[in-house]
């Protein structure tokens, strides 16, 4: 049995309880809506862009600790990144939580989600915000993790 404390690291629970990037990007250049029917959760991610560089990412909606912390840390990490970099990071992040990759080349803060790999039912929680932001950047409105 995997250790729960690996899933709910202090940084995760802290960002879940006190997210720094809740709200709506203003001005808002693109918007995505994500849906995790498993939790009954919905998330709205808004992005402010400047020359394909992400100026600000905000999210709204209610979610579990994993999805909230993931959304918040995602926002933190993506600010200042290009759209292309964002996609690359998402790919690595997805590999990390799905247990197919490591955190070696990921921004440090995202390494706290390594524990998710031991909880396959929670992979969708960890990736919901990411799926949604990528869809927003691609101009697709609705995504779902199921």
């Amino acid at each position, binding site marked *: *049995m995997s250790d*729960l404390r690996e*899933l*709910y690291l202090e940084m995760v*629970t802290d960002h*879940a*309880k006190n997210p720094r990037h809740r709200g709506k990007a203003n001005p808002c250049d693109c918007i995505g809506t994500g849906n995790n*029917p*498993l*939790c*009954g*959760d*919905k998330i709205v991610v808004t992005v402010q862009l400047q020359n394909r560089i992400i100026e600000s990412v905000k999210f709204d909606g*209610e*979610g*579990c*600790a*994993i999805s*909230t912390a993931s959304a918040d840390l995602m926002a933190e990490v993506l600010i200042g990144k290009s759209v292309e970099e964002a996609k690359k990071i998402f790919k690595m992040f997805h590999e990390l939580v799905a247990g197919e990759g490591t955190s070696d080349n990921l921004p440090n803060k995202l390494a706290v989600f390594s524990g998710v790999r031991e*909880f396959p*039912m*929670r992979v969708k*929680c960890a990736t919901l915000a990411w799926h949604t932001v990528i869809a927003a950047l691609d101009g697709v409105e609705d995504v779902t993790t199921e």
Partner: protein
Amino acid sequence: MSNTQIIADSFPALHQTIGDKRLVYLDSAATTQKPQCVIDAITSYYEHDNANIHRGVHTLSMRATTAYENARQSVANLLQASRKEEIIFVRGATEAINLVAQAFARPILSVGDEILITEMEHHSNIVPWQLVCEQTGASLKVAKVNDDGSLNIDSFKELLTEDTTIVAFAHVSNAIGTINPIREMCALAREVGAISVVDGAQAVGHIPVSMSDVDCDFYATSGHKMFGPTGIGCLYGKHALLEEMEPWQGGGDMILSVSFEETTWNNVPFKFEAGTPNIAGAIGLGAAVKWIESFGYDTMIQQEQELLAYGRDVLRSIEGVTLIGASEHNAGVIAFTVAGVHPHDVGTILDHEGVAIRTGNHCAEPLMRRFNLSATCRASICVYNTRKDLDHLGSAVQEAIRMLG
């Protein structure tokens, strides 16, 4: 040995650990565990009698046909239907309701007709009616639910009018466990000439269900929620209605004769059982019915009610836990939330303690919205549960609060 112990012993899946914790299965509203006799009935069918049914002259086919039709009779007896032809084997409650919506309702509905459901329905008793409304122009009305999770019967009466063609409602709510007064509701429907469709997925196997007493027109069940296999369930329909109806699906076994010019339907219930049915599933369901009967509804109700009361006490005594829709007439379903901890996280932490509950919207999004929630935790009780299981639930919830609350 206690009654409870005897039961627990006959459910093999309950004897396992999750990690290093004993499994505490409190997700029976999603699907019940299966007694050994049901598993054995399936195995024995495949090992000895496996054959296609109804059209065979050989011995295996005869045995399989007899076993399949005996299962139909068993279900008819359990539900107190007036004849076995009123029992149609389907995949489950969802298919049963879709069958009624498409084969019964769709041909008779048009603009101006109304379908009345309630706010506490499972998606399976909402979406089929939305689809048929879209197809026919009929409209959907929704009776309200009270704060305690009971049906607002005034709202139900108010919305039940001469325009109401069909009334569809759960016998027991899967999300909060409310037991509806279906006999009274069916009588009210009859008064305005509406056809009643009862979603019994959560009732059979927990509380006695009698077609002759309830006098509904249709009743839907799922085998896997009443100790039977997956992929099998029943639609009960009044014989006269079934006779009138056109078939839904076409294929083998549901026809008497086929030519390219003209095809003649078979008799009820075969008219509605196109193709090879889930033979092993029906036989397993027959075994489940026998198990329910040998156990007896009296004991069942008594045990489940006792556990429900105990479980509610356990949870109520934990600070931060709120019970949702805990009505007086309730089956063994306890819906709750934990302050500061999202249900999904509660579910993960409980699983880590060996306690299996369900979290989310329980395929009842509109009911969640009614209670201003996006998700709840749901512990659902079955005869094989014990007080000890509910104690574990309580301590696991406390652990969740300790970790994240």
